[in-house]
């Protein structure tokens, strides 16, 4: 079976088991001999590499352009300050002080356009690092890690996804929430697996994610983690919206405990392995052969 497919693993709230699902899916695909890439898009807190051993194959420093102002050429006209929509240029014309507050700069380049005196040039600063780890011959993990204090992980996530290319099966562990980073990850996916838990919090977040995915017209299904805890409201919601329930991962202290030790749960749980495999086959059959339009 060939076919290139991008599957995004997402959840509205954190800690529902997104990483559990994506790492185990990765493990399974690896076992089955697919060419597979796991992209850890949770750039604020990437941790997929905790579960696997791999060799760093390539690191890619993600850069942003930041203005450098030559005060000797500056006429203190204030146009760059006015053009900057992020308050990132500090200007005191009276005392001839002008400086760039790099933490605030988004690198839009407006100030360079504004400057008529030729006082602004640009330099590269690092936003974060995208690292490719070779796990086995056919599998690799790409990790997006942003630097602490960078305003938005979006550009790093973009790069990580670019790095993953289009070859083979690509699993994207997306960041939680429904804001920009989530949309950035999901927008390139062929199929989205939403991971949730059967609690009122889980349900409310699921609804939000579903609404967002609807507007993006994506195909998606739901995995319920910690099934058995909580209540049944989520099941009636799925039924009512006719959203496919892909899989239930039972609530089991041994699963939680193995996961917390950085172990792949499927290795020791043949039953769950079987259900993962069934789900995977179904997804690949339905969506796997279609060619990626992006």
């Amino acid at each position, binding site marked *: 079976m060939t076919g290139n497919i991008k599957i995004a693993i997402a959840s509205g*709230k954190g800690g529902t088991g997104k990483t559990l699902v994506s790492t185990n899916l990765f493990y399974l695909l690896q076992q089955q001999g697919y060419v597979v890439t796991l992209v850890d898009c949770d750039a604020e807190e990437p941790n997929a590499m905790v579960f696997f051993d791999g060799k760093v194959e390539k690191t890619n420093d993600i850069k942003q352009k930041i203005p450098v102002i030559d005060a000797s050429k500056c006429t203190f006209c204030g146009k760059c300050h006015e053009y900057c929509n992020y308050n990132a240029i500090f200007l005191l014309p009276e005392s001839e002080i002008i400086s760039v507050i790099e933490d605030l700069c*988004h690198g839009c380049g407006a100030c360079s*356009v504004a400057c008529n005196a030729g006082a602004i040039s640009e330099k590269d600063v690092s936003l974060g690092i995208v690292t490719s780890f070779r796990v086995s011959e056919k599998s690799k993990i790409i990790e997006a890690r942003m630097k*602490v204090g960078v*305003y*938005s992980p979006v550009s790093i996530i973009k790069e990580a996804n670019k790095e993953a290319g289009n070859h083979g099966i690509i699993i994207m562990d997306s960041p939680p929430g*429904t804001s920009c980073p989530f949309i950035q990850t999901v927008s390139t996916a062929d199929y989205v697996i939403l991971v949730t838990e059967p609690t009122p919090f889980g349900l409310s977040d699921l609804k939000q994610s579903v*609404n967002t995915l609807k*507007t993006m017209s994506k195909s998606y299904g739901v995995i319920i983690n910690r099934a058995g805890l909580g209540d049944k409201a989520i099941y009636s919601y799925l039924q009512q919206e006719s959203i496919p329930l892909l899989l239930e991962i039972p609530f089991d202290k041994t699963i939680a405990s193995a996961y917390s030790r950085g172990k792949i749960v499927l290795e020791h749980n043949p039953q769950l392995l079987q259900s993962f495999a069934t789900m995977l086959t179904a997804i690949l059959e339905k969506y796997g052969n279609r060619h990626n339009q992006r």
Partner: protein
Amino acid sequence: MEIAIISGKGGTGKSSISAAFATLKERVVLADCDVDAANLYLLFNPTHEEEQIYIGGQKATIDYSICTNCGLCIDYCRFGAIDLLSEKVVIIDTSCDGCKLCSRICPEEAITMIDNDKSRMFAGTFRNGKMTYGRLAPGEENSGKLVNLVRDKALQLAKSENLDTIIIDGPPGIGCPVISSITGVDHVVIVTEPSLSGIHDLKRTIEITSKFNLKTWIIINKHDLNPEMTNQIESYCNGINLKIAAKLLFDPQVVEAMVQCKSAIEHVPISDFSTGIQAAFTQITSE
């Protein structure tokens, strides 16, 4: 007194713990600053007393009656947010950063900036006092400003209602909204769990809080899931002089409480979780 509850990663039980803190005293102000996925309102079902529109930045739009499709804006945009689709210049909303450069350079003045105004801030009364929370519209960037708005409202309510305790349920992660949630609070409680990713995220979170010189406390939730890892977290915290305010057992009753739309304190007042939270609160507030 403002107590902010944060965690490096999601799902550590931050909201359950915030809910428990919020129901320890008869009356408090609860600020749900996890605006990306606000959910404490589900437990407490506050009255809807106030709603405020939150403007979260701007996005560019094109007036096609003026646009000549010259494509100059495509060259200038550094965010890849303007594209040529079937010979028409379009703005990709989710990529637009709102820098306004395209609007400034457009020779026809066909591009204007419009406000993102779909996010909201709410305030109301719940059974243990006042509550404020924010909801960010999908796809909108969380700048921490909405968090500020929620916190401001909470402060204002604390003053007008004469309440001395504000419980802030902060967002997960280490970005700008987290910083907004903890600046200037009296105590920060970091909730963690004994897993490899838990300890890893804890360290990144401490890196942030240590920059702010705040009184920081650690709660290890579900500590029985991995005792060795719990020991490791404890010795790490000891090594850098951070106090462990509580170690809580994993307890399905806490989830059960959530389903009943109650906090653990209300649902199972006599349990390891509830007594642990109670003791932590006493310890934190007495300092």
